[in-house]
């Protein structure tokens, strides 16, 4: 076997293994599904390589079927994930362990079990700019009282930078 085929196979294997690794270690349902899709990528690459190796089209035809199945899988998995999210308001896969041995405790990470306290990371800070020009009037025409007066910019009290974000969020909402 020549190196130019082998190297494709190694890359395919790496993608496959890294996908599996993501599936094992991550707890977010969406990332789990992404990892599974990446495993399919590895397999597709391997198949295409085989197709080239044997100089026929069976591998490529099979890859098309993998694409189809991956699409179906993604659609169904996302529907299930949404349904689960509606139930638990969380994407944590560790919440769904009802099929375990009846008398075993649910498998929880050390933080969940309270052994190591979980400290949420610092919220990310972004560079802020002072407002330039005229702040647009974002008063609701139909419900003038809706906008908080304290938050609405006036000449007397120029906005704090953090307030600007709030205002913009309100407007977007």
């Amino acid at each position, binding site marked *: 076997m020549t190196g130019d085929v082998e190297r494709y196979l190694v890359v395919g294997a790496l993608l496959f293994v890294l996908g599996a690794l993501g599936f094992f270690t991550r707890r977010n349902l969406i990332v789990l599904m992404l990892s599974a899709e990446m495993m399919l990528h590895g397999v597709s690459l391997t198949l295409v390589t085989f197709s080239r190796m044997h100089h026929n089209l069976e591998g490529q035809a099979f890859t098309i079927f993998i694409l189809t199945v991956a699409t179906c899988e993604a659609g169904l998995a996302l529907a299930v994930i949404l349904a689960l999210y509606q139930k638990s308001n969380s994407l944590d896969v560790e919440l769904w362990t009802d099929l375990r041995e009846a008398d075993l405790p649910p*498998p929880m990470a050390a933080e969940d079990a309270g052994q190591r306290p979980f400290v949420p990371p610092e919220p990310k800070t972004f560079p802020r700019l002072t407002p330039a020009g005229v702040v647009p009037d974002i008063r609701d025409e139909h419900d003038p009282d809706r906008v908080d007066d304290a938050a609405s910019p006036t000449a007397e009290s120029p906005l704090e930078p953090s307030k600007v974000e709030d205002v913009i969020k309100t407007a977007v909402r």
Partner: protein
Amino acid sequence: MTESAQKLVLWLIPLAPLVAAVMTAALGPKVLRERSHLPCWFGLAVSVVCSLLLLFSIGPQHFAEDSHSAPIATGYKWIEVGGIDVAVTLRADAMTSMMLAMVTTVSLLVAMFAAGYMHGDPGYPRFFAEVSLFVFSMCMLVLAANFLLLFVFWEGVGLCSYLLIGFWYRRPSASAAAVKAFVVNRIGDFGFLIGIFLIWTTFGSLNFADVLDRPERLVALAAAEPGRITMICLLLFLGAMGKSAQFPLHVWLPDAMEGPTPVSALIHAATMVTAGVYMVARCTPLFVYAPTALLVVSGIGAVTALIAALIALTQFDLKRVLAYSTVSQLGYMFMALGAGAAGPEVATLATTAAMFHLFTHAFFKALLFLAAGSVMHSMGDVIDMRRFGGLRRALPITHWTFLCGAAALAGVPLLAGFWSKDDILAVLSDASHDAAHRTYFYAIFGVAAFTALLTAFYTFRAYFLTFWGEERFPEEAGHHPHDAPSVMAWPLRVLAVCALLIGLAVGPTHWFASYLHHTFGLAEVESHGFHVPLLMASAMIALAGIGVAWLFYVRSPQLPGQIAAAIGPLYRASLNKFYFDEIYRAVLVTPLRTLSWLSYWFDRAIIDPTVDAVGKIPQGLSLLPRTLHNGLVPSYALVMWTGLILFVLFALGVIS
């Protein structure tokens, strides 16, 4: 009758009561309610008509011709495994149709009586369903053409007996009696079953025709292995002992009186308990080659007849007197059957005599029980003869019919019991002419004669105690006891007429004997005339017994007390039924209970912990791997992946 019509009749006899039973069981509680007796009556009436048709269609055809072409109706193959080939086949010959006529007639009359007797009972539909089921089983038992089918319905009648003894199942004594009957019968059935196995290994077939109707084969077998036939016969007789309440398995029958009185009349006097006699009579062709077994049959019958008669002397419970009388009369029949030890000719006569007594006994014993039931009905379910007396004016119909039955049982000349009992005595005297067992049968004859005396005495003791003397009613009866209503009175009257006349009709005319001789497998023999001296002696014995009873209980009522005091221990032994129940309790029940308690302890203390310990091993082993089963899909995937790695490494030869 054409052959197909005969088959139809043959099938209708058992199936009509079965349909009635199913109908009553299905519709009784909700739809029929107080009319639940109607399907039963109708089904039984169909059976009676068919039985009589069969009776008269078999008779003339077979008197002259080959007696072995009995009508046979095969339903379907039931079991066909390896060498066992059992079909549900009905066959009817003279003995069968005679039994059928008796069973269905008595059943119909009892069912009519029961409609009055059981009126208002909450279990009314159940009663008639069970009675119909019983008649079905009994007819199938009689009609069965092979041993296995016979056994199945043997158990069937046992089941119905159990159900009906325990009819009032809320009463502890009734359910205990039902269990007792069932268990004691099991002992006999065990022997019966072993006997059937032995028949199969010996003859390779269970059909009556193959086993009983091959004289040349039986002769050869008897010459080669006499012990085996004797064994088979003894085991079959063990079954008969259970069903027909012979010593030492007789203890269940008196207790069976806990059931409703019509049941006692039908099952525990007239029909079911005679199944044992019928079975032994049916197997006479086999028994004649086992004289030893016949001697045992005769001896057991004699012991039973005597003991039961002695116990009956002192009982105060009217139904119990009749129950012991039944046991005693069944012993009589077995005595007669055992006389066949003297040779094939005597065996034919013996079978005839036994079946004749069975036939007549069914009518007058049913009559006696029904009359006793009528007394109970009037006396508010009191059956203790010490608590009532002088009922002959209050209950005239019951009185007269009871008198007819009592006279027939006692053997008053020209009545039913007289002829059949005389037949038995004649057979026994025939047997005692045989050189081999002369002394033995002399003794048996003596016991029979003495028992006849006792029978006449205790029957009329019960009669006088109940219907003569000062008029007394128990308080349960109310002030004006009423006689049987017509639905109960008419069966009594019909049975009374039967008790009076049926012996006269078929006995002295040799009608019965010449009819029954054409049962297959019985040796041809000329029925002989009457022993006039024997007849006279028999009549004298009966009258003497009645006279003593009259002397004791009407003329000078203080005499029995004095005699009882004079022979105190004997009297108490008789009153306490010779302590059979106590002996059984001490010898059998207590050790068995101890053994079962020991087994229970062994099971709980040794076997259970051992099994539990074995069960703990996999549980302990699984403690670690089961943590893998944590319900988390990625974790499962990791485990699967690990397995895959191991597999790949193995395939590569890295690990081996």
